[in-house]
């Protein structure tokens, strides 16, 4: 029953949800609204907590065994416990909410935003060293990219020409390419979902 029962659950629930979409009977709507849609977010909260628990365990192990750069794990744990404390306690003791918001606005936001801004430099370096028109296809890609990048450049009389070329690229060949990919993705999602429901795809069960 360690593997069979979950497969039975998935099959019955999956089949029920497919049928419910086409046959929204009152009783199936009741199950849909009050169980299928209402319970999983509660389970999800505990699932997300798993990540936090795992992070805590890994950090504590690193500190205990004095692994390389273990000192930074102390920083991680201090950040984790401080933020959790001001958030959870702050709900019951509102003056602490200011500390919670301060941490979010002055620690999380600047660091998260700056981390992603580093990508601008990497793209500049890649443009200089790696983006080569080695073949016809690469040339097509680069020309299309340059036209789209220039769509808002103030180029005097050429502004409207580049703008219209860019619009054409986005609304015609780009649309065609992305639609083909979308159809493929849609078929892939449907087939994977069917494989999961029918028990053909079982990787989520893990190993015994």
């Amino acid at each position, binding site marked *: 029953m360690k593997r069979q029962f979950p497969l039975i659950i998935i099959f019955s629930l999956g089949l029920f949800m497919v049928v419910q*979409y086409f046959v929204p009977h009152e009783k199936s*709507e009741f199950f*849909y*609204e*009050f169980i*299928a*849609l*209402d319970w*999983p*977010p509660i389970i*999800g*909260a505990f*699932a*997300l907590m798993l990540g936090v628990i795992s992070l805590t365990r890994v950090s504590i192990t690193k500190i205990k065994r004095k692994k390389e750069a273990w000192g930074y794990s102390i920083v991680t744990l201090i950040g984790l416990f401080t933020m959790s404390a001001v958030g959870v306690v702050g709900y019951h003791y509102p003056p602490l909410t200011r500390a*919670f*918001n301060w941490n*979010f*606005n002055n620690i*999380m*936001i600047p660091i*998260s*935003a700056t*981390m*992603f*801004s580093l990508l*601008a*430099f990497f*793209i*500049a*370096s890649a*443009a*200089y*060293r*790696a*983006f*080569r*028109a*080695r073949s016809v296809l690469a040339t097509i890609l*680069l020309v299309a990219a*340059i036209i789209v*990048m*220039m*769509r*808002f*450049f*103030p180029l005097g009389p050429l*502004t409207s020409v580049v*703008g219209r070329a860019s*619009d054409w690229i*986005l*609304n015609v060949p*780009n*649309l065609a390419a*992305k*639609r083909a990919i*979308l159809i493929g993705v849609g078929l892939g999602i449907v087939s994977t979902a069917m494989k999961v429901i029918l028990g053909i795809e079982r990787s989520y069960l893990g190993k015994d």
Partner: protein
Amino acid sequence: MAENNSRKNIFERMFAIDRRWVYGFLMLAVVLSVIAKPIIPIPISREARSIYDFMNSLNSGDYIHLAMDYDPSTLAELHPMTRAVLKQCFEKKIKVIITALHQNGPGMAAAAIDTACQRHFELTGYRPESGKDWVFLGYKPYPILIILGMGQNYRIPFPNDYYNVPLDSLPMMNGIRNYQNVKAVINISATSATDWWITYGNGRYQVPLAIGVTGVMATDYYPYLQTGQIFGILGGLQGAAEYETLVGTPGKAVEGMSVQVVGHSIIIIFIIIGNIGYFATRKKSKLGL
């Protein structure tokens, strides 16, 4: 021969420079541009204008749902969109139901609402109130099921708002049950939440949907625009600048677009130089030099 060797060395030398010089060059260019604050005209795309015209066609007291599904790492592109949409809603007295279905997003969303309310107060003397002019529902896990749940009844996933006030006690939620009571959903997102809104929100409940997404994602949604599954796209910082221009409050996005011209020019120049060097080096090696 010596001349050819030295020309070959120039290109090799150029591409062998430490990448930190490239980083420094880009950083300097952006800093100088931000200080100089150049202004460029912002052309308005059809995709952005259709969202603006739709919002303009709404009446005072109509409801829209603003889904802010992004986190701090993408606030550069998406926050200006949120601010512009909220400004338009408060000006037209459109009631806004707001959700933030990204786990790092609720705090940022609450701050954005607070800023928008403060700006409206500075302009008009009236500060939009929670429960009366807007309601912020907050975050719940598993966005697909939350989107489906709100389509049945907002109270299924959100019995209370973000501030833990029961939804039934909020005046503006009287008679508001699900998407049938809102005129549209404006989804501003940096994640797969946009796909889920299109598939589960518009797909199941046919709620009119417009999207504001990062530049990385924008080109992927033109097929949906053509079929009418979405009625508008705001793409990246450009989309944000277009909407700021349309609502009449040029802000960080419009300022940023001017700097974008510099950034893009640098990237294009790098690509061109790189390719000149590549073809020159290839020609030389073909000639056996």
